[in-house]
């Protein structure tokens, strides 16, 4: 008879367990999302994160031992970013046609995203550190954390804002666009990627491939523009 406690002690310390839990939790979450007709509230990232976090708390597992397994999935974000070139190339004719609207929407969206967050934070009397963490929230995590360092913010707190922005945006984008009666899927996808970076892009790919492509472009362009604009705009906003 195997001692279950010993078995747990052995497995919970190995990367295999948490890699498997992450993958299976996502497969279940994705199946639920599909069963709900990809309803925005049934967001697979959010469901998986909630389930795994609860499991970690109940099993008293520290994050580093979870990440020892989950890092293999996290690592794939790099090659996935490179892979975005494929849909971009496939939809090149549409992208070329939409070039002017894209660039103007990029500048408008990026400025509004940064300034609205900073001004609201100032208005509600948030601490300087929280305000600085909000400024680059729409850039992809790697860029936002770099910006945070540059403006003497806290990179860890910034990463929290980035992920919260990603998940919330992926949830509200579809109902908001329907409310605004916007049927241009290039425009909808572009907004999702600009505001909610990779998580918004993942949502856009769920909805349709053209929206996903424009989201991927917006994610790249707004990452660059945020890195340029945040240090420039902050002295004016604060």
């Amino acid at each position, binding site marked *: 008879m195997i001692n279950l406690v010993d078995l747990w002690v052995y497995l919970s310390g190995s990367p295999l367990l948490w890699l498997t839990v992450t993958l299976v939790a996502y497969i279940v979450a*994705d199946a639920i999302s599909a069963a709900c007709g990809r309803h925005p509230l049934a967001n697979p*990232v959010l469901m998986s994160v909630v389930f795994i976090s609860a499991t970690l708390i109940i099993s008293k597992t520290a994050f580093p031992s979870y990440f020892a397994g989950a890092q293999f999935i996290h690592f794939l974000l*790099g090659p996935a970013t*490179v892979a975005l070139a494929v849909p971009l190339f496939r939809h090149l004719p549409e992208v070329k046609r*939409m070039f002017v609207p894209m660039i103007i*929407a990029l500048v408008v969206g990026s400025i509004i995203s940064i300034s*609205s967050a900073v001004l609201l934070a100032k208005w509600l009397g948030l601490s300087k550190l929280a305000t600085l963490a909000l400024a680059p929230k729409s850039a992809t995590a790697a860029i936002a954390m770099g910006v945070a360092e540059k403006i003497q913010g806290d990179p860890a707190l910034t990463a929290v804002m980035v992920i919260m922005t990603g998940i919330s945006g992926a949830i509200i984008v579809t109902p908001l666009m329907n409310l*605004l009666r916007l049927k*241009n899927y290039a425009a909808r996808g572009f907004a999702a990627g600009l505001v909610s970076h990779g998580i918004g892009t993942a949502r856009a790919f769920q909805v349709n491939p053209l*929206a996903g492509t424009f989201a991927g472009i917006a994610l790249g362009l707004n990452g660059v523009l945020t890195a340029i604009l945040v240090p420039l705009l902050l002295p004016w906003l604060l």
Partner: protein
Amino acid sequence: MLHAFAILLCLQLAGEALVRAIGSPLPGPVIGLALLFACLVSKLPLPEATNETADGILKHLSLLFVPAGVGVVQQLPLLGAEGWKLLAIILVSIALSLAATAITFAAIAKFMKIHDETPEEERR
């Protein structure tokens, strides 16, 4: 599939190396994206399965954000008493910027008479 994955990794590696070499503010994978795009545009011979492999990874892009998301839950105590205010600001700010971006894009496309050709059945 194996060759295609190796190409993705090689281009990411090249991107990381370039970032270190020229001190670019962009992350390595974004440079890798630009490099792969350049390869596709210049019609360089890439492994046959490059398209399918890229589509396969992107189909489950959501999965890749799960570990980072779990990390964020661990950091939530960092937010302290400001947590709810932060969430409220994020929601208002993203609603404003989503609307502004999409409306600007669609309005200018309409003004320039560029039509969106998304097939009706793909819309949701």
